[in-house]
């Protein structure tokens, strides 16, 4: 038995996923070098710091990987409770930075990034014991709904709109799995829309409302929220088919977008590598996500499957929101592009997700 476990570990290591992730990380870092070379605020340290976080991320992923994922199943609720406690702590003691109270350790640690994973673990634990295919009534969704609502509510209270929306989307990643009839979906949609309207009216600050309105009507205020959107489109557009070349982007190197190393990293990629480069990166990224779903399919238990799907969600939704924002398809909300944007917490959270996916993959169902 012991021998079998040991053998499985080595033999079934998922080189494919690891390879894709390493490729994306390398592209992300190359891109960041260029974004930083333009001399954005704190420019000279950016690459070095990102590299040390990458190193830390590799270690964290390694640790996450060696512990059989079913142990996470056992402790899912404990981990979830821990992440909620961190969110509460943040709410209690964090100082306001950039209009939000979402960071600890003077802006270096963002607990909400890790709460997403705690939430996914709790949901997977729940669905592992209550298989989604058996869930037919809306009221069966109340418990998992609460698992999602709690962190989302706390993150809204931190006034971190971007991550709140993100967490909500990740939480709903598992919804398509359940067998709830159509009219129930409509009900959810109506409640959701009402909730969003209420959030917009009462939960958002003036400038956040402004951003959304600015997105719907870019001419509304060309110099602030609409500006970034317009500027991002110019940067992407000036890339053309082949791009301007690494470190050659006029928009990038003149720093028209102050957050080009974080939220707008993809605009740098699109400008300097053009359609061919950025479409390739998107394709590789999609491949990583689809591979994640394949891991879910091959997992040996429902917990593993549900966890893998949730983890794919933690990688899909930030990328979807971020790229949509850069391409002018969504309002400007501060969500980083996993593996590409500069930022420690998001990168570490992505490393944990990937470590868990590799974990499930190498302990997959073997015939």
């Amino acid at each position, binding site marked *: 038995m012991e021998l079998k476990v040991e053998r499985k570990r080595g033999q079934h290591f998922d080189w494919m996923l690891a390879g894709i992730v390493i490729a994306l990380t390398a592209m992300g870092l190359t891109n960041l070098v260029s974004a930083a070379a333009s001399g954005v605020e704190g420019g000279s340290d950016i690459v070095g710091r990102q590299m040390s976080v990458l190193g830390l991320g590799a270690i964290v992923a390694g640790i996450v990987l060696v512990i059989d994922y079913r142990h996470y199943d056992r402790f899912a609720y404990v981990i979830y409770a821990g992440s909620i406690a961190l969110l509460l702590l943040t709410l209690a003691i964090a100082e306001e930075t950039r209009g939000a109270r979402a960071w600890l350790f003077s802006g270096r640690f963002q607990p909400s990034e890790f709460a997403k994973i705690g939430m996914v673990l709790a949901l997977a634990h729940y669905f592992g014991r209550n298989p989604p295919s058996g869930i037919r009534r809306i009221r069966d969704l109340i418990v998992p709904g609460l698992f999602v609502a709690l962190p989302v509510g706390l993150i809204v209270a931190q006034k971190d709109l971007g991550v709140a929306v993100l967490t909500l989307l990740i939480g709903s*990643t598992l919804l398509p799995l359940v067998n709830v009839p159509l009219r129930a979906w409509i009900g959810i949609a109506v409640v959701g829309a009402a909730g969003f309207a209420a959030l917009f009216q009462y939960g958002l600050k003036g400038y956040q409302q402004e951003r959304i309105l600015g997105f719907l009507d870019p001419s509304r205020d060309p110099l602030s929220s609409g*500006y970034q959107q317009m500027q991002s489109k110019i940067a*992407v557009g000036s890339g053309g088919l082949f791009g301007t070349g690494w470190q050659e982007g006029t928009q990038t190197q*003149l720093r*028209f977008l102050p957050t080009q190393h974080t939220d707008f990293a993809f605009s740098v990629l699109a400008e300097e590598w053009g359609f061919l480069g950025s479409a390739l990166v998107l394709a590789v*990224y999609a491949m990583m996500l689809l591979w994640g779903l394949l891991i*879910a399919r091959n997992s*040996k238990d429902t917990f593993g499957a549900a966890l893998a799907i949730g983890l794919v969600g933690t990688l*899909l939704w930030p990328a979807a929101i971020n790229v949509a924002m850069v391409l002018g398809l969504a309002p400007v909300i501060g969500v980083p592009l996993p593996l590409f944007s500069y930022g420690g917490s998001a990168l570490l959270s992505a490393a944990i997700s990937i470590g868990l996916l590799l974990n499930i993959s190498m302990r997959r169902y073997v015939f």
Partner: protein
Amino acid sequence: MNDPFGDARLSNTSDGPSALRMWPMAAIVVAIFVIFIVRLFQLQILEGEDLASRSQANYVRTVRLEAQRGAIVDREERTIAASRPAYGVDIIPHEIRNPWRMYSVLGSILGRDPTEIADKVGQPTGRGRFKPVSLSKDLPLVERAQLAGHRYAMPGVELYRKPLRDYVYRSMGSQLLGTIGEIDARELEADTFTNYRSGETIGKTGVEAANERHLRGQAGGVNLVVDVAGREIDEIARREPTPGGRLVLAMDLDLQQAAEAAFISDDPEQPNRMGALVALDPWNGDVLAMVSAPSYDANAFAGGIDRKAWNALNSDPLRPLRNRAIAGVYPPGSTYKAVVAAAGLAEGVIDGTTEVTCLGHFRLGRRVYRCWKRGGHGTVDLEGALAGSCDVYFYELGKVLGVETLARYARLFGLGSRTGVAIRGEAGGLVPTPEWKMRTRGERWIDGETISLSIGQGANLTTPIQLAVAYAVIANGGQVVEPRVVLRRETWDGEVIEEVSPVVRAENVIARPILEMVTQGLTSVVMAPGGTGRRAQVPGITVAGKSGTTQVVSLDLVEGMEPEDIPVRYRDHALFAAFAPVESPEIVVVAIAEHAGGGGGAVAAPMVQKVLARYFQKREGQVPSQLAALELRFPSSLAIEPMSGGIR
């Protein structure tokens, strides 16, 4: 066994490949990324053309706003190099309608031949069509006004404002400040210049190059919406440039000016002096003045120097572009005797009372070495030998010490290797040894060479700045300091970023009492009645120094010629190295006048004197009165007294 938790506590009831529906999720992933790629295609391929070119009526043009290059100021924050706004004109080939008509109009405004403009623009293809071709970087006011007036009638002609370098004192300290110029293809490839783009101005030599990163600043830009005629319709975005940082030099403008003036000939009939001068603070290495003559007007480089002017400067036989103070190598001549004296004392070969009788010549084997004073100095001790620059005394001393010992001490003083001054192009000089001769020439060392060496002739080579560092060692009691050119770096608005700390490369290289004895001899050179350096005297200050006169060619070549008849390039170099005040030295000055046609005492000492005089004039009030100083230092004539004040 290897699982830290053990499997026992895990649910082993794997429920098999899960029956979850994956396809909706996969469909969502695929749909999202397909939408993104379609959107990218739309922005980059379909609309991208509109943004980059002018297939539509309006398009976006990005105009780079160059940052002002940071100011260079002296230690009292007086501006030496600044930036001034200037106007330039570019042509964007792709936007030119009717090129020939345009070139002739431009030609008449700029006073240039239309064909020359046409050649310059050429027939670029591909991306090159959008690349601006610069016609002028510094337009006179009238031309600028005329061009501005015709602006909209001349699509493709771009008038822009860009800061230009302005060297306030033109040719003052040009080689130290260095040159600027357009970055070239090779530099663009180098790692040091990542994120530079072609056409940018960079420091090429001197302080400008050594502090390129600091002085550069950050360019800004504007995104303009322009119509077909290039008219600006709207401004979408603007990033203001950040000016480059301020650089505070250790240089003192007053001293620098005095030092420059020292090279100007008193006699209008005579050409100005050539050579170099370095003034150092012996304690921290501050480069208070650095002159290399002849110089050139640094402003010639400000707007990008044209080929003709550059060729002229570069091929000038007097080599004005070369910084002689750090890159010029000269035999140190008799200034080297201070080093030999220190070696003799330290090795115990001589002491202050050791006497040598100079009859005007010295014999080694069959060869006779002459003292510069044909009649001889008579019997001299060390102080007298230094004061009168007696060659025979040092021939004897050098013979006893031997070449290896001489070389060892020369190196202790920092000779024969770069001083580490933070400017490119420093020469290392040469301390010859038998090993060196064998390696480079494949010949054995001849004892006679040691004799030449001991009076600073022969293969011995030093740079002026090395000599200044060596004399600073005597002045400060044994510390080899690294010359410091830059005092501190500040942001453009004066916030201190970095203070450059002084660097001591070696401590206590020679025992202090020995240096005090050498100083005593050097003091006599300037202060004693028979001293060779009396023309370096500054009223009220005790100056120590040493003259040097170095042969450029073998004596046989000029034997029997009248001084005026000797061709300039055969004339001797004149050197003088000094520090003052002896009681607690504050400044070291080394001057070298190339092919001066006069001795170090006659030509170079007065040059050093001018700088010292200016220095002490400036801090008048703190200087002890003339009387007190004389009393303190020289109770009687040349009698050897223990140094009361000593050196610090």
